[in-house]
């Protein structure tokens, strides 16, 4: 049994999360196998690309209901986080509905460029074990054009013109809009908090 597994949702640089876990000494297989996923202690749903194709790939692999029914801690990353919410405007697609809120296009404005690309500050929205050891205002690496403006499940926010949810958690389901695998020590600490 693998302690941590990565759901193979097909995105382009999906291997990076796996390498980040290897740097922490954890070998997490990339899998679409329902039994392997169900048996794991921790499940990560990575994702690069767009919400609609990510949902379509989960559906083709027969994994939608499985992901919805997981009891062990689940962490979605970037688009993997977005599809944990109820709906995404990107491709007008119904998502997994495990986190409360909807994904919309980030508004551009004077000096606010889309995609939101680069290092931005995480603002804690309360006490949260996943954020242990991560300073309020620490920088994480973001690259995305869509996001969740507000959610009762937000545990950290961020600002790019408007505020948006940078991390969310509801029970055992959590998500990070930034890329922990590319967020230097801050990202490594988040992954460590999740897998320990």
């Amino acid at each position, binding site marked *: 049994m693998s302690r941590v597994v990565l759901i193979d949702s097909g995105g*382009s*640089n999906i*291997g*990076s999360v796996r*390498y*980040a876990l*290897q*740097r922490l000494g954890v070998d997490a297989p990339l899998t679409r196998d329902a039994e392997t996923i169900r048996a794991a202690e921790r499940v990560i749903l990575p994702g*690069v*690309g*767009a919400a609609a194709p990510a949902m379509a790939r989960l559906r083709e692999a027969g994994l939608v209901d499985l992901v919805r029914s997981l009891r062990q801690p689940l962490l979605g990353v970037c688009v993997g986080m977005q599809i944990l919410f109820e709906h995404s405007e990107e491709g007008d697609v119904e998502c997994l509905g495990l986190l409360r809120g909807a994904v919309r296009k980030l508004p*551009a404005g004077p*000096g606010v*460029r*889309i*995609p*939101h*690309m*680069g*290092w*931005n*500050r995480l603002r804690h929205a309360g006490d949260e074990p996943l954020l242990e050891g991560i*300073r309020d205002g*620490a*920088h994480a*690496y973001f*690259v*995305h*054009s869509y996001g969740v403006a507000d959610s009762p499940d937000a545990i950290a926010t961020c*600002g*790019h013109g408007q505020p948006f949810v940078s991390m969310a958690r509801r029970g055992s389901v959590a998500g990070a809009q930034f*890329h922990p*695998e*590319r*967020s*230097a*020590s*801050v*990202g*490594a600490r988040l992954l460590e908090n999740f897998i320990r």
Partner: protein
Amino acid sequence: MLSRRLIPCLDVRDGRVVKGVRFRDHVDMGSIEELALRYRDEGADELVFYDITASPDGRDVDVAWVERVARLIDIPFCVAGGIRSVDTARRVLHAGADKVSVNSPALERPELVDELAAAFGVQCVVVGIDSLRDEDGEWRVRQYTGNPDKTRSLPRRTLDWVDEVQGRGAGEIVLNCMGSDGVRTGYDIEQLAAVRRRCSVPLVASGGAGAREHFAEVFRRADVDAALAASVFHSGQVPIPQLKDFLAGEGIEVRRDA
């Protein structure tokens, strides 16, 4: 608030990092892994690896080193040079690169930008533009600048190309101002500011950095999102930690918690 990014650019030839003087006489700088780690530890926000052998020779990028870098470092990196198809881009991204950058191949066949954006999303697609002011005062793009013998001037105006690639799906633009490249007298503020006014995606300044003041100037006056440099970082003339302290002191938002 989004930080301004500092991006060292590493030229890669045959699996090693090299330094060239005006694209010639390359000197070995060390292994790719060693330099990638060094810059990561110094607080570089991102790295660009430019495969200088791939594009002029029509060769594909060797992805073995891309995967080694992806395993090693925990900051984003982009691979440039030799990417002329969705298939090659896919191999580079699957090896672990966060973005691919296209330049001459996009000028040969602009549809490449649309294809890359459709396949991987705009956030993976960087368009590099080499630009020089002509005698009539217009900035125009140059092609095949990796090899001085093959470099061509094109009739295409830089500002028109900036508009076009954004429409086709560029998620970021790197503007290399060739007139200031390698001379270390500062970024080409006038040109970068003109491109900034046309550019609603992130814009990266390239060419001309020689002192820490040049970085403050390009962020403040041209409002670019990131500044790319090679020789001032490689030589240690402008160490990244001190540069970030200086920029923060100037009121410019930078990431200092590496």
